[in-house]
């Protein structure tokens, strides 16, 4: 009786042991399967998001570049056309554009530079007294590829 109860308790432990192990094995199997699928689908999904955001950010930055190009052309043909302060703002804006890490989406300075660019743009626009708007910002609506 004594030895039987001992063997019983051993087999009970075995069963729960193997049950727990099996559950863990199944969990791990599922996890690994999910992980490799997630790697693929996550990359594709994020690539689509990256395509969209890269284009939008590129467009906004290019917009400012195009404006600065026109203003610089004006300064070249008529150096006294804009006030000194305005010219300084345009120069500052150009520096910001050149500083922007276009090909480094993980660079954390990007947001800050873009904010400064938007601010400078508004200042210059007010200085010129023109109605110039970057239509792409804020984004009109969410787009699905």
């Amino acid at each position, binding site marked *: 009786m004594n030895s039987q109860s001992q063997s019983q308790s051993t087999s009970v432990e075995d069963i729960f042991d193997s049950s727990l192990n099996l559950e863990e094995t199944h969990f791990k199997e599922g996890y690994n399967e999910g992980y490799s699928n997630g*790697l693929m689908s996550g990359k594709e999904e*994020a690539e689509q998001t990256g395509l969209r955001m890269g284009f939008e950010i590129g*467009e906004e930055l*290019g917009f400012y570049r195009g404006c600065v190009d*026109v203003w610089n052309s004006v300064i070249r043909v008529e150096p006294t056309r804009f006030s000194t302060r305005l010219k300084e703002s345009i120069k500052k804006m150009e520096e910001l554009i050149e500083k922007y890490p276009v090909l480094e989406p993980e660079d954390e300075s990007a947001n800050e530079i873009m904010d400064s660019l938007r601010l400078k743009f508004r200042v210059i626009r007010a200085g010129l007294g023109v109605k110039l708007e970057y239509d792409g910002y804020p984004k009109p*609506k969410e787009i699905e590829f």
Partner: protein
Amino acid sequence: MEGSFAKELYSESLQLSNAELGTEPIVSGDLQDDGGSLWGGSDEELERESDLDREWQRRHDQFHTIGYRGGLIAGKEASAQEGFNIGFKQSVLAGYNWGIVRGFTSALSCLPNALKERLIEEQEKRNKFRGLYETVHSISTTDALKFFHDDVLRNKAEEQSEHAKASSDVSGINKDSSGCSHLENYVGELQSLLLESPEIKSHLSVK
């Protein structure tokens, strides 16, 4: 800049799967309750064992599913930044060049006429700039993005057909494919207008 990007993308699904985990607790008490007869030999007990097998199978499937969900989210998070960077780098320069066309023509159209005339002497050319501005202005970022997406898809299709062909004249085909894209047409139009207008200088990048 996009450090928390993966979390933004997947935090919702993560919460969802946590909620599911919470509402479906894995009951482990019932096994212990009738554990005493697990290893009996009678028919009735064999039947009970096969019930138990099914129960275990169900639970193991459940563990597999829970594991799968967790793995899927972890896998997505692990590859999100990489995928994002790939997409971003693929589109940012196209967006940039397109943006220059938008910004340049917009800023130009805002100048007083006298200044425009100093920059661009010929009336005909000024009209062309004006025309380009009007066309470009009517295209929203959303439209432009669609054009761009079409271009990407077309380029991919062409790449695939190129791989099927001999690779000898790949460069020639590439030139053709970039020439027929919507957005690049506008970029090209601005480029050629600028070439004829020596007073204006642009940073429109030459590829």
